[in-house]
């Protein structure tokens, strides 16, 4: 029996850059070309200056942990073999309040600390789907 497939997004024009970036190993965040504000989740218009001139741009992938939860119960067949796993909100260093939803990897729940420095990496879940995940930052 084949393993269950991961839930795979069906991106639209507004979000394709995020997923194709992840497949290339780049974390891409929508940015207003008029005023420089980063926006996530992608939206049709800049929330700061209301410009429609928005593009996905690569970001550093460095951030800090805003909150997290360890899930012990799967709500989709793909996660049956993955529980418990960590889901997190990470605030990116590019802009205050610029947050992404992600998985925390290569860290045990007991070692997770809100506020800890984290760094993006990428996990390939299928031929079509690579997701950005975050791990504790390694001191330079």
């Amino acid at each position, binding site marked *: 029996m084949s393993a269950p497939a*991961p*839930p*795979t*997004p*069906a*991106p*639209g024009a*507004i*979000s394709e850059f*995020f997923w194709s970036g992840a497949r290339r190993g780049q974390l891409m965040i929508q940015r207003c070309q008029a005023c420089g504000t980063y926006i*996530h*989740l*992608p*939206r049709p218009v800049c*929330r700061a200056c209301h410009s429609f001139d928005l593009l996905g741009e690569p970001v550093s992938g460095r951030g800090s942990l*805003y*909150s*997290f*939860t*360890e*899930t*012990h*119960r*799967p*709500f*989709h067949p*793909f*996660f049956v073999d*993955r529980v418990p*796993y960590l*889901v997190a*909100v990470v605030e990116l260093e590019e802009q205050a*309040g610029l*947050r*992404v*939803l*992600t*998985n925390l990897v290569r860290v045990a*729940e007991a070692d997770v600390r*809100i506020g800890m420095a984290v760094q993006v990496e990428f996990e390939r*879940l299928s031929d079509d*789907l690579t*997701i950005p*995940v975050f791990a504790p930052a390694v001191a330079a």
Partner: protein
Amino acid sequence: MATEAAAAVGVGYTKLTKASGRTVLDLATEAARSSAQDAGVPLAEIDGVVSFSVLDDSVSSEAVATTLALPELRYVMDFHQGGQSPCFMIQQAAMAVTQGYAKNVLVFRALNGRSGVRVGSGQFAGGAAQYRYPIGYNAYLMYIAMWAQRYLYETRTDPRALGEVAVAQRAYAERNERAIQRRPLDMDSYLASPMVAEPFRVADCTSEVDGACAVLVTTLERARDLRHPPAVIASAAYRAGARPGLDIGDQLLYDDYTRNFTSLLREELYRRADITAGDVDFAEIYDCFTAVVLMGLEGLGFCGRGEAGEFVRSGATGLNGGLPVNTHGGLLAEGYLHGMNTVAEAVLQIQGRCGDRQVARHDVGVVTSGALVDGSALVLTTDR
């Protein structure tokens, strides 16, 4: 108080079960009819029906008006939000009757929430979900858990405070025949309850049920001639924070995961009723998960920042405490009718009809609907 005021005058429930074996329309009709009978208002005089649903889990207001054979329908609403809705729906009904657009308005919530569409595990469509499902962030309890974790961190609250909420509410449920969870709960059995999504154990989570609940709203003038004392709708408010999100699971642009909508609407809620937090005799706080009660107690000004856990532990929210809270056992124990039953319990308390769990002072009650970025609230009072 304005000369034109509205009141809740009757409540109706179906039995709350894990598998009703009935259609949602059947459940809705029974609860709606019961609320009219409870108030002593003939069905023929009901001319408004208001309801809410998520994921098409309910039936339309017109469908219920049809099964009840209401002869003259003047006000309807089918609102597409979840637990944020009940107090806001009562507000709509109150506006309709005080403005003269309708005379008697039924507000109902009906669903097969256990055997049918389960809100926590649904596949929400929409653009924001593509960022959640691939990472397994795919249940409502996880969204609340994410807030709860930040709340516990920032306020340095011991996670056992969540257990204190569950234990305190279960004591009420033992006195509530309608409650689906009535087994006694102490801290040891709470801590033995399996973890679902940190910090939430099974005992922190609402009990999904099949069932329906309805509340009838009319003018205060009419209410004074009815069977039970009026629960006067002294104030109502709905608030959403800035950038409330693209869908139910999108809170990425809301700044503060430690303060929910109750902190946003508190001031206007109390101002309209001309009260302060100190005037409130009891509170029915929406509790799909325990942490929402802690945020509500702080947001509504019943205790200071980070003090809610100790407030509950002290017994303040118990039947003999200074501020009884969730006197039906809450959604945790009575069952998850998405907060419609939270409103109905407040009406029954104001009316003095709660028997073994009746609070001693019941002149001013606060009710909330909703958990995170957005929600609504009421102040209900006796006819003073």
